[in-house]
């Protein structure tokens, strides 16, 4: 997946108000059999079976197909998803994070994320932002009332702001991961850089 440095993102949002939006929803299993890493392939499959019917026609009343939310993400447009509770539950498939990143989304905001998916998002340089349930509801209300409403996610200061109301919350991220996102560094390079520590540890590791 493309690595893009993270800073401040201010954008309109796609509200996907589905609780327990599991990774089977985010990308159905049949897209998992491919060995490609093409972001567009996975982006096109994002929420596929809720977006399209069995004849591959858009389902008109699904939020991503409504004209006001259907524009594909670009700078300032639909780079943020407001998601329901327990976003990304179920299967560990990183393809779900590839789908979100491949579609062009940079940030997912929810009141809770499933653990594996949250790690996968971070490893794909998509920022999962945890807010209170009350603020999540406020963001849904704002974005449903006005699709042009913007949300500002400031990673350096760890704040998320509803630009319409001015209300803001702090969000958590550890210093290491923040550094990775801001500088577009990934975990594998870090782990390779500390291989001497790993080798020293192996000598002390208890067998069985």
């Amino acid at each position, binding site marked *: 997946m493309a690595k893009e440095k993270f800073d401040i993102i201010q954008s309109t949002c796609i509200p996907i108000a*589905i*609780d*327990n939006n*599991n990774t*089977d*929803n985010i990308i*159905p*299993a*049949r897209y*998992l*059999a*491919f*060995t490609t*890493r093409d972001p567009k392939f996975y982006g096109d499959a994002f929420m596929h*079976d809720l977006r399209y019917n*069995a004849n591959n026609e858009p389902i008109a009343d699904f939020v991503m197909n409504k004209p006001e939310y259907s524009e594909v993400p670009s700078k300032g447009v639909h780079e943020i998803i407001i998601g329901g*509770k*327990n976003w990304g*539950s*179920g*299967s*560990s*498939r*990183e*393809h779900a*994070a590839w789908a979100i990143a491949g579609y062009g989304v940079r940030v997912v905001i929810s009141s*809770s*994320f*499933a*653990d*594996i*998916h949250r*790690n*996968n998002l971070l*490893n*794909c340089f998509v920022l999962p932002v945890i807010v209170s349930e009350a603020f999540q509801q406020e963001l849904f209300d704002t974005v449903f009332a006005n699709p042009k409403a913007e949300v500002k996610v400031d990673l350096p200061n760890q704040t998320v702001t509803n630009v319409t109301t001015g209300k803001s919350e702090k969000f958590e991220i*550890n*210093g*290491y*991961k923040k550094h990775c996102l801001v500088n577009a560094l*990934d*975990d*594998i390079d*870090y*782990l*390779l850089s*500390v*291989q001497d*520590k*790993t080798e020293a*540890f*192996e000598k002390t*590791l*208890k067998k*069985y």
Partner: protein
Amino acid sequence: MGKTLFEKIWEAHVVQVVPDGPTQLYIDRLYAHEVTSPQAFDTLRDKGIKVFRPDHVVAMPDHNTPSDQQEVINDPVGRKQVETLAKNCAEFGIKHFAMGTKDNGIIHVVGPEKALSLPGMTIVCGDSHTSTHGAVGALAMGIGTSEVAEVLASQCILQGKPKSMRINIEGELQNGVTAKDIALYIMAQMTTSGATGYVVEYAGSTIRNLSMEGRLTLSNLSIEMGSRAGIIAPDETTFNYLKGREYAPKGADWDKAVAYWKTLQTDSDAVFDKEVTYRAEDIKPRITFGTNPGAGIAIDETVPTFDGLSEAEKTQLKAQLDYMQFEPGQKLEGTPVDYCFLGACTNGRIEDFRAFASVVKGKKKSANVVAWLVPGSWLVRQQIIDEGIDKVLEEAGFELRLPSCSSCLAMNPDKVPAGKLSISTSNRNFVGRQGPGARTVLASPLVVAASAITGVITDPRKI
């Protein structure tokens, strides 16, 4: 203050805590399957690096494997993925259990039964049901493909330390109630996110009395309540199960290992971040009615109504019931089923086939259902044959298929057609999980067996 079993295993594997960051955790065993590994191997090729500790990695295809024949995978996409795994394993020097060979099967069935998963280990795999291996007293977690690449490259992952939870089940299980019902019961109590952020330890007299197969089923389903892992402290049941298996330590090594494994217990004065207790007597055979595994009821209960729900809750329940074509307040017992599936990493072990056979013995499969009986591994399949269970199944009108993930997730030919109702021992009843438009009711092997005989959702205690 004492330590929990989880803390003991975790601390034994901490290479370092990254400053203001996660823990660098050493991994004893990486399992890889064909679906979540190809892009990880590509990452290694991009970086021009080798697998750091190839002897710690074991790979096998399972998701795309057909269950009717294993000469060829007809779907070119699935075939390429399985071939890619074989090629990657050859290139990077990794042990590979090829499709159709006696070593193959579903990773989460094969790992424990070959004693590749042992107490005290840290185990990861690009698969959420890796939690299964926690049943042997290991810390076993599902990971994503980026993390698979990290482990291939460094034998480590970076993880924040999860919180700890103990779930105690006390008392004696009622007739017709299995480990699957315990898991479905816990999920309905806790919801599918009730254990998010936690490593769960299962304890209590009911758990102590579970067989190894039952424990594997319970740990398998830990992820369905959001848990990072589901551990069960090793005991005589664990040691008896592992002893003599292919990769278990032998001779003096075995004695040394058991001495260590016996220390893998939560100390009596350890404190968990959260602790809950349930009574085994409160658990009945269970089924699900909705599109997440927590949306379940006892088999003799009715589908919930909208009474007392908020508008948002009502909308979400309605969406689930509309998809399942069930009504609020409906009794599901007696509802006609089209497909019956016994298998998956949840219930594809010998005990599950024994349970199924005990119900169908001397009876006949309903002509109205398609039944897929799919062992979790070639070892399980051989044991079914050795015990004569295949004959019992055959006489009752069932066919024993070949080891595969099969109908659990619609990545191989065993797909449930749109609109059809399936009663299944698998782990997820998500929208489209068993095939686009397929409707899934999760249940134990006993409930699935009883339903396969009558052709309707049936309480195994009544047949």
